[in-house]
């Protein structure tokens, strides 16, 4: 249902806004022809792209592509884009789904790697800050967390590249994307900086959330009871304190990871990583509806999946939740 709503909304924004601004079908098509195209070429492009058809018919054609596939003239012949077909780019003329699948490993590598870093550092910093409330460590870590939340990726990214890659030579050339399957070490070396930069932004929020949750939980009666029963402090903190704190952290994690898997737009652009986020930026800049639809639906799928997984994990973390 969500995918349906998202696709209709994207479609409507793409076609209705220009129409409201007075653009004709030919005006719209003129974006997708060469710069030397004449009126006839533009008009033919409008017909070919179906811009003269009612919006409902155009949307129906898109949905049909997802369930049945699309036939397309590529010049020497007709090719079939099998279902689920997200159509062909208006600009590059490439099929959208293979393009997205081609870029998915890059976005997955970036988002999952960064997620590990921010969860480990964010949660552990939050726990330690809560346990040492008011200490120098608490103030320092919360100050750094504040900076992390405040500084944009294009700032931390470019400055970190200048320092760690150009001056110190500690990391590889991020733009030379190497798949994990080809060379795991180079893959990791090239991604360390994007991971840390992205994690710096997110870890800050997790540290603050975990700290607040831990402070509240650690003052609960059942924590005092656990201590009174003589449980070791580590067990009190991890099993009774942290476990209760993790529920809101997991909710946030599901949303964040889902969004990132749909494209870490700023990080990918800053580090020249050709993932789904960079693809989304190019699609928007080119007013390329099939590509924009593809990215939007991919992001929606990931958000749904991530939230589903988080819902399932609630049962593992919180003993009060049972899957029925």
């Amino acid at each position, binding site marked *: 249902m969500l995918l349906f709503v998202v696709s209709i909304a994207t479609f409507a924004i793409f076609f209705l806004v220009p129409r409201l601004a007075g653009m004709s079908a030919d*005006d719209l098509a003129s974006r997708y022809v060469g710069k030397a195209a004449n009126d006839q070429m533009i008009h033919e*492009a409008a017909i070919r792209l179906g811009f003269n058809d009612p919006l409902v018919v155009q949307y129906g054609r898109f949905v049909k592509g997802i369930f049945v596939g699309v036939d397309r003239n590529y*010049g020497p012949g007709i090719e079939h884009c099998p279902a689920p077909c997200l159509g062909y780019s208006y600009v590059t003329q490439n099929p959208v789904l293979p393009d997205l699948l081609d870029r998915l490993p890059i976005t997955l590598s970036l988002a999952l790697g960064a997620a590990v870093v921010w969860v480990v550092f964010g949660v552990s910093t939050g726990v330690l800050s809560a346990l040492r409330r008011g200490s120098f460590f608490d103030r320092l870590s919360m100050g750094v967390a504040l900076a992390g939340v405040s500084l944009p990726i*294009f700032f931390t990214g*470019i*400055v970190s590249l200048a320092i760690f890659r*150009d001056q110190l030579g500690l990391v590889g050339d991020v*733009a030379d994307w190497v798949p994990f399957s080809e060379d795991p070490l180079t893959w990791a070396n090239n991604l360390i900086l994007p991971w840390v930069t992205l994690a710096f932004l997110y870890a800050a929020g997790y540290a603050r959330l975990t700290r607040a949750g831990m402070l509240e939980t650690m003052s609960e009666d059942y924590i005092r009871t656990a201590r009174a029963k003589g449980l070791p402090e580590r067990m009190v903190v991890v099993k009774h304190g942290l476990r209760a704190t993790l529920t809101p952290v997991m909710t946030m994690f599901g949303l964040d990871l889902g969004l990132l898997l749909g494209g870490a737009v700023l990080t990918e652009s800053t580090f020249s990583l*050709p993932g789904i986020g*960079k693809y989304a930026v190019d699609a928007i800049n080119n007013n390329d509806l099939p590509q924009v639809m593809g990215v939007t639906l991919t992001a929606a799928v990931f958000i749904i999946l991530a939230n589903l997984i988080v819902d399932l994990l609630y049962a593992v973390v919180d003993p009060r939740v049972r899957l029925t």
Partner: protein
Amino acid sequence: MKIRSTASAVAITAALALVVSACGGGGSAKKTGGSGAEAPASQYNAGVTQVVNPSDKTGGTLHMGMPGDFDSVDPGDQYYGYAWNFSRLYTRALTMFKPVPGKEGLELVGDLAEGLGKASDGGKTWTYTLRKGIKFEDGTPVTSKDVKYAVARSLDKEILPSGPTYFNDWLDNGDYTGPYKMKDKLDSWKGIDTPDDQTVVFHLKKAYGGFDYFAMLPSTAPVPAAKDTGTKYKEHPVATGPYMFKAHELGKRIELVKNPNWDAATDPNRKQLNDSVEVLLGQNEDDLDQRLLSGKIDVKINSTGVGANARKTVLTDDKVKQYADSAPLDRTWFTNLNADVPPLDNVHCRKAVLYAADRSAIQGAYGGPDAGGEVALSLMPSKMTGYEKNDLYGVEANPGGDVNKAKEELKACGQPNGFSTTISFRVERAAEKQTAESLQQSLGRVGIKLEVKGFPQGDYFKLYAGKPDFAKKNGLGLMVYGWGADYPEGFGFFQQIVDSRVIRAAGNTNLGVKDPEIDKLVDQAAAEQDATKRNSIWASVDKKVMDDAFILPYVWAHGLFYRPPTLKNAFISQNFGMYEFLTLSTQ
């Protein structure tokens, strides 16, 4: 406001990063690609007139990077200068610009063809003879039929939309639209004959004296019909040049390797010095500039050189500046004066604008003399073939404008106290916004009041300034933009911006130059077979446009390019206005 603050933040960040990069070790530009050795000294602008670091050593990889992507690497589907420059690494068109520095680089020579074309039938028929021994990358010999097929497929703008339309417009095509829709009609197509395997004969609808420039277009590079994959041909164009595609990850990277079937004996204009050429696509421009300055990337592929933030570093640090070149481009930045909007229908009112404008201030908006360009005296860029000095408004003596003459023209126009109109610009382009504001100030000196209005650049020509109805209805009297030539000869520069017959309902690049005399001169120049006479007519077109005062030119554009100290055989191609890619190497 949000756009401005974001842009400022990005600029500050990039500037900070460049400062950080430049700190320590005496400046990164002193290192030779990270080896730590001292780099050879060079001179600013050395690459404009001579080959820098000449070398015949072979081996290594040439690393290139670009902020976006090519419109296409299919030779039948590309329009940008950097794409044409790049495609000559793996394809060979009938003719090409001589790959040498200086003015000699504007001369056409034979490439796939033995020499330039032979005209007959008063310039309506052009014949080219192919060199013998040229092969495709798979060893198949190239024949005239492959050239004919290549041009024929480029006519189909549904499948290959991006390239120029010269062959659509000029060849005697009848109703032929290309081999994809008319598979069986290639042989009966009248546009091109192939009497034998070595001869290609072009038949034109009307005479054109500069056809050798059309023969230089990448769409004349041969394509084997059996290997044509239409829209997918860009994944692996079949090579005839010294390199061929090993990998093309669309939108990500390209890797070229040596073409084993390229024979230097058939190609006096190219060498095969690099083992491979790698292009990283879609790079963050500020980061790409940093990598270029530190020698991690050998060449940046784009039209204008280093970005705004890196420019500051290049121009202010002499250690860096010595490796930079300010290259003149075939481009003029100008403002169109719309005669559909009164009182600009009166030539004297238009002349008042041309006299009053402060071109020095606008030069600053475009980046100054090094990164922006020279103050323009007329529309035609001075570097172009056939340029003749034409300073009707005394700009050389008064780049800041001549207020007294402007006032005289306003009196002659019947508007002694000035008038009001609107000036449009592309909102994403800071230089154009500053230009509009600068004109608002300088024209204000004589009472011409401008209302400044920005429009999105993606639709600027299709919906706003380039749509005559919209421009007239909204009173766009002045429209800021600029134009670059397809090739450095009059027709390639003027035709689309001064010929009134190209004006259509929308999507125009001629924003209002309407003079039958200019149209007549364009026709005369196009048909003229004698190059000297032809160039003289183009100079007359330049003078007439200025006399009509339909266009206010202010900057002949330059690009600021950087060549790392390790880059060999580097020089600016006078034709492309960027480094000549054919000669570059790293050993």
